[in-house]
């Protein structure tokens, strides 16, 4: 404790201290702390400039007036934030809740939650399968899971489009096999968006789940079976609680990028219904309202933060209950 005390007063106290050895140790530790701060200074500086800097610009812009042709005018205005949540009816000037924005927020959250659920449903058995293989073959399976990351997101999205479009692989095969007479319309639906996002983000669910399952003590499962637990009960009472940290981490990793997804809804969803990312783009592009775009971006950030706080609290509660 003494070593971390007030740095100006500490040396004086150190000299008068009875135990000279203790003072030496604390001085050494103080130097260590200083050196470690100095060593991490470049990284902290980059983080501060590259992460906080742009965010600060976004924050400032969200409180400025929109320029006539895009950009901003340097005078304060709350119009950007006002428009995020409230809408002045363009025809009779009444103010009401921004129904269009809320609809888009809700769609984004709903599709992201669904994507997370799909990823859990597909990722859990996959991770289990890998974790129960022999040590050597596990690496091969993990390697296979990471293969999609080698290709650009846009290219993967267009590849999915090739598979599900009216003249794509799925429809051609089904038509040729005589299962269907008319191509099924898969493109431009919420299903297409979900399919695309689940495919893209699935590895982000499998990897943390696998990490948790790999550390699983399989003797516990054996013990449960010995005590006549049913398979479902083993899953619910033993496996899920033990891999929960991985499950939560995976869910967060899938949920957050889904929320801000831009390419997938645009390409596979056909642009008829926007998600948050598309709404933000509209303001910076054709809508020429940068302050509103900035305010919407920060709103997205806030939603993500709420999700993260939720996550941290669950993890803390878990840690506390374990102690």
């Amino acid at each position, binding site marked *: 404790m003494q070593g971390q005390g007030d740095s100006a007063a500490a040396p004086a106290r150190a000299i008068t201290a009875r135990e000279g050895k203790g003072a030496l140790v604390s001085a050494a530790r103080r130097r260590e702390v200083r050196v470690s701060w100095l060593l991490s200074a470049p990284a902290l500086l980059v983080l501060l400039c590259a992460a906080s800097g742009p965010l600060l610009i976004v924050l400032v812009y969200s409180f400025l007036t929109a320029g006539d042709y*895009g950009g901003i005018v340097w005078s304060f205005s709350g119009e950007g934030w006002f428009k995020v949540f409230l*809408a002045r009816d363009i025809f009779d000037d009444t103010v009401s809740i921004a129904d269009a924005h809320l609809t888009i927020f809700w769609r984004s959250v709903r599709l992201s939650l669904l994507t997370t659920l799909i990823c859990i449903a597909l990722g859990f058995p996959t991770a289990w399968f890998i974790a129960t293989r022999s040590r050597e073959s596990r690496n091969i399976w993990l390697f296979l899971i990471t293969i999609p990351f080698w290709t650009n997101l846009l290219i993967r999205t267009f590849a999915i489009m090739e598979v599900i*479009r009216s003249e794509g692989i799925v429809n051609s095969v089904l038509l040729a096999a005589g299962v269907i007479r008319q191509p099924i319309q898969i493109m431009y639906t919420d299903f297409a968006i979900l399919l695309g996002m689940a495919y893209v983000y699935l590895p982000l669910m499998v990897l943390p789940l696998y990490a948790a399952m790999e550390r699983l003590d399989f003797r516990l499962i054996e013990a449960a079976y010995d005590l006549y637990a049913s398979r479902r009960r083993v899953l619910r009472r033993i496996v899920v609680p033990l891999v929960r940290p991985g499950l939560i981490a995976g869910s967060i990793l899938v949920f957050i990028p889904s929320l801000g997804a831009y390419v997938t809804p645009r390409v596979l969803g056909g*642009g008829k*219904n926007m998600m948050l990312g598309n709404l933000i783009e509209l303001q910076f592009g054709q809508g020429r309202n940068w302050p509103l775009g900035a305010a919407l971006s920060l709103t997205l950030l806030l939603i993500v933060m709420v999700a993260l706080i939720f996550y941290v609290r669950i993890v803390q509660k878990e840690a506390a209950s374990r102690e």
Partner: protein
Amino acid sequence: MKTGLMLTATAIAAFLAAGPAAAAGKLNIFNWGNYTSPELIEKFSKTYDVEVTVTDYDSNATALAKVKAGGHGFDIVVPSHSYIPIFVAEGLLMESRPDQMENFKHMDPQWVDVDWDPGRHYSVPWQWGSTGVAVNREDYKGDINTSKIFLDPPEELVGKVNVVPEMADVMALALMYVGGESCSTDKDKLKAARDALMAAKPKWLSMDYGTTDKLGSGEWRASVNWNGSTFRARLANPNVEYGYPQEGFPLWMDSAAILKDAVNVENAKLFLNFIMDPENAAMISAFARYANGIKGSEAFMPDDMKTAPEINMPAELAGAGKFNKTCSKEAQDYYTAIWTELTK
């Protein structure tokens, strides 16, 4: 140390030797995607020994936002007529005086004193055309010279229509459909346009770009589309036909202009002069299939363009074509509000 010096010296020597072989200069063009004729660029590169780079954008708004942000490194940009006054007002264009260039004499007089660049002090016509509707005639045989194709689709086309997410064009079409004009701030007209769009949306398939390919492949049976894109789609699929909505349809002209912070100004000026040569202007049109603004270029165009119904507007419908205005902030906010409601 010695080897290091030797290596450096070799590198410098190699660089010097390679110098004369490389292009004498550079030119960076920022243009719409799938819009710049590669033959034209090759010819320009060879004639003036200039290394040309073309970068794509998909909307005027994107181009404006990127140029405005600065640090782009582009020399030439090709905005639509309604955006030229914005680029000028924002101080982004150089007054390069194309009207004093050698090949200016070839410019069609009707495109010289235009509202968006009177006397052509900033820009040179690239291509011009219209925004109308494209329909696959296999599905629908009735009249297609109407915005009803997407605003009140006939039975055969319900659930099959695409609408390009080009806010300015779609809003203009909808406003003209209800008897208004583009960039209107007349609330009654705006409301009518909104209602028409909202009622029609459930009958649309998608709101996406990429019309040339998907109309050509037959995946889309109808779409709000540009005339030249429809022309290219028809070459791939003879059933595709272009309609000029009689209620009114937007005309547009994209013009090439030099950016104020261009680095390769001399090469950019050479390029503007170059594309006013009828033979070169014809190359632009032969690729993207739109008309250009240069007299005498018809002689160099492919035969199929001379009679193409997408390029030669029928006289009785030509009057319905109107150039989109540059929207005021107020009109723009109305547009965005309606658009957000439409795509929510």
